[in-house]
Structures are given as structure tokens and as C-alpha cells.
């Protein structure tokens, strides 16, 4: 056999995993991996742009993903550039250094979701606050439906968004009991918040500074509970000579 003949036989089929690797790299299919969280094991899906969704690790998650996105899903490792930051992002309830892919949502939905990531751990904000922050003060209901369809719960902490009357409200990731559990886990004391809502207390002021806040804002929480003044609305607070906190921008 000539050397040319021998060289011609040096070709073979592609190695296993090549087609999958290319499909993942082009984003034609997405990868998923499982992570622990405060509400149990969750499925995180990702592509080269970042994390695209997060869901409870229930048996039909792949079917739900595919029906929502039209894309296939295979078990994979997240990109090594940010993989190590994922567990911390899930636990902290903020993307942090993990890129998030929001190409499947509208610009309005994206701006609401990005503002949601700014709500600090252990605090909550009403839907009306998000609407105001995205300069659409009348869009409270639209904000509510953005929360209900948040593709990346936990990392985009929609569990920190509550009804405008102060009650905890619903939660897309497995129901309201998980929202309470998460807020408890983060030290937001949902029992206290529900009691305040029952008494129609939506805001609290500090007589020493004349500033009023959302009840979970760290500014008001640094004062003693007994010294705070309760308000039903920003109008009442302002009529009483109080001014809004610059940190939590109460609504």
C-alpha cells in the first residue's frame, strides 16, 4: 500500500459529542444543569449569551422549555467563564457576575426584570414601585404579568415584589408558599409584613430624620421599631411633613 493510500484511510467519523457541542455553541439547542437552591433542586438553562431560564426540577421541565422556546435541551456544563458564579447567584438572588439572556422578552419586560435585580436581599417592593422605576407609573398590572412570566426566578428576584396593598401576593415558581419561604430565608420577615398590610401600613417614617421608607428598607430598619411612624400612603406621609427616602424611593 502506498503512503497516499494509507493517508486516505486516516479519516473517520466525527468524535462523539461534536454535533452536540456545535449545537450548544451556536445556540441551536440549549444546555441545562441542576443546582441546589432554598426551594429545592432547580434546573438552569443556558446558551452562549448567558442563563436563559430557571425552573423547579420537575419531570416535565424539558417539555415546558421546548414548548416555550421551540428549542431542544441537553444536559451540559455552563460556560466556564462564569460557571463558578452560578451557585452564589442562585443563593444571593441576583445575577451578579452571571450574564442573563433576556432576548426572548420585550424591551418593556426586560427593563422591568433588570430593575427587579436591584431589589436588595431581605427587602421587598410593591408592583407600583417597579412601574414607577421604569417610568411607566400606570403600568402596575403589566408589571404584575411580567413578574408572573419571569423566565429566571430566584436570580431575578421577583419573590421580592409584593402586592401594592402590602400583601405578599402570588409566586410563579411553585406558588405563594415558596415566596414566603424565600422571604423568610432572606430575613425579610413576611409575617411582620402581612401584619403591617392587615393594618394598612404601607410605609414607615423616622421622626428623627423626617424620612419615610418602605417597611423593609434598610434605612428604616436601622431605627427602633417602636419609634417608627406608620403611614397608609405617600400622600399621608408627605402631608405629615415627611419626605421620601432616596434609597428605597417609596411609592
Amino acid at each position, binding site marked *: 500500500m502506498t*503512503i*497516499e493510500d494509507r*493517508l*486516505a*484511510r*486516516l*479519516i*473517520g*467519523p*466525527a*468524535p*462523539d*459529542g*461534536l*454535533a*452536540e*457541542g*456545535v*449545537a*450548544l*455553541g*451556536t445556540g*441551536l439547542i*440549549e*444546555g441545562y444543569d441542576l443546582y441546589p437552591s432554598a426551594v429545592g433542586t432547580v434546573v438552569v438553562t*443556558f*446558551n*452562549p449569551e448567558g442563563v436563559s431560564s430557571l425552573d423547579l426540577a420537575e419531570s416535565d421541565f424539558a417539555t415546558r422549555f421546548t414548548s416555550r422556546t421551540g428549542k431542544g435541551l*441537553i*444536559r*451540559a*456544563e*455552563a*460556560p*466556564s*467563564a462564569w460557571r463558578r458564579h452560578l451557585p452564589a447567584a442562585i443563593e444571593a438572588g441576583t445575577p451578579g457576575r452571571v450574564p442573563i439572556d433576556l432576548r426572548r422578552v420585550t424591551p418593556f419586560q426586560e427593563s422591568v426584570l433588570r430593575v427587579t435585580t436591584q431589589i436588595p436581599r431581605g427587602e421587598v417592593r410593591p408592583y407600583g414601585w417597579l412601574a414607577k422605576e421604569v417610568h411607566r407609573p400606570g403600568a402596575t398590572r403589566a408589571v404584575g404579568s411580567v413578574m408572573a412570566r419571569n423566565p429566571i426566578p430566584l436570580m431575578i428576584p421577583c419573590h421580592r415584589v409584593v402586592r401594592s396593598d402590602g400583601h405578599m401576593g402570588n409566586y410563579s415558581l411553585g406558588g405563594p408558599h415558596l415566596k414566603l419561604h424565600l422571604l423568610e430565608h432572606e430575613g425579610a420577615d413576611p409575617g411582620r409584613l402581612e401584619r403591617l398590610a392587615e393594618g394598612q401600613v404601607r410605609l414607615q417614617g423616622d421622626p428623627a430624620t423626617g424620612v419615610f421608607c418602605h417597611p423593609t428598607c434598610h434605612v428604616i430598619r436601622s431605627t427602633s421599631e417602636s419609634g417608627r411612624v406608620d403611614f397608609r400612603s405617600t400622600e399621608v406621609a408627605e402631608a405629615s411633613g415627611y419626605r421620601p427616602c432616596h434609597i428605597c424611593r417609596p411609592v
Partner: protein
Amino acid sequence: MDDLNQSLAEDLDHAFPLMVERMGGRLYWGLRRMSGSHQEAEDLTQETLIRAYRALGGYDTGRITSLRLEPWVWTIALNLGRNHLRDRARRPTFVGLMDDAAVSDPDLGETHAWDQRLTGLSRAQRTAVVLRHVVGMGIEEISGITGRPAGTVKADIHRGLNRLRTIMEEEQ
């Protein structure tokens, strides 16, 4: 032109996996013979096909149907290999079998010997010999891919084959 070109032009996302299936093996084994390394060849094959997909996404129908796909893909591969333009860290990685064991070797046991032999050639000779005799391309195509004149490509192949013969004689 080719059916594959036509399919890619009509529905890129649907047809692209066919292109990967058709070219993946040839690309991988060509790059494997050039680099002598499974990891290197696998990385480069993936990166090449991903870049090809992105490029095709920006081409209009006419350009895709008139493209000579395989030489075009090889041009991308050789440029990437030269420039080390990789962004593996930005991609999800398939958690299948990613080591040497997963490679179905066409010439069992001989693969490492050939990796070794081919590293005895200069880069230009190795590229030309592999494209000509492993991948099976014509001189003109190789000249187009490598940017070297056809006469030079022929000389590279000739010298490369002679060098391989010497290496193999020395082995005995």
C-alpha cells in the same frame, strides 16, 4: 449548486445540523492530523463550525447557494488555527464523552503513530499533505484555502510525502 447549499439558504437552523454531520468528521480528522492533538482538533472543529453558522446567518441566499462550502469552512478553520481565536470559555460544554476514548478511530492504534509522524513535517507541508491526501482536496482548492500559489502547494505536498517516507523507513 449542491442540495445542502440550497437547504442552508432556505432554512439555516434546520439544515445546519446536516452540514455538521457531513463535514464534522472530515474537519475533525483533518485538523487532528495537522495538530496531532485530539483536544486541539476537537476545539477547533467546534469553533470553526460555530463561526461558519454565524457567518451563514449574515449571508443572503445568493451568497449561500454559490458558496463552495468545504473549502470555505477550511479557510475558517486554518485562520482560527493561526490566530488562536477561541472562545471556548463562553460556550456551554456537552457533558458526554469528551476524551480520546470517544473517538472512533479509522485506523486503530495507528492514530498516535500518525500524529507523531506528521509532526515531523513543516507546518505548510503538513497542511498541504493532509488537505490533499487525507481530506482529498484538489491543488487549486488547497491553494485558495492556504493562500499559497498552486506550484508551491505541489512542492509542499511532494516534499511532505518524501519526508513521511523517510520517517517511516527510519521506524523500521
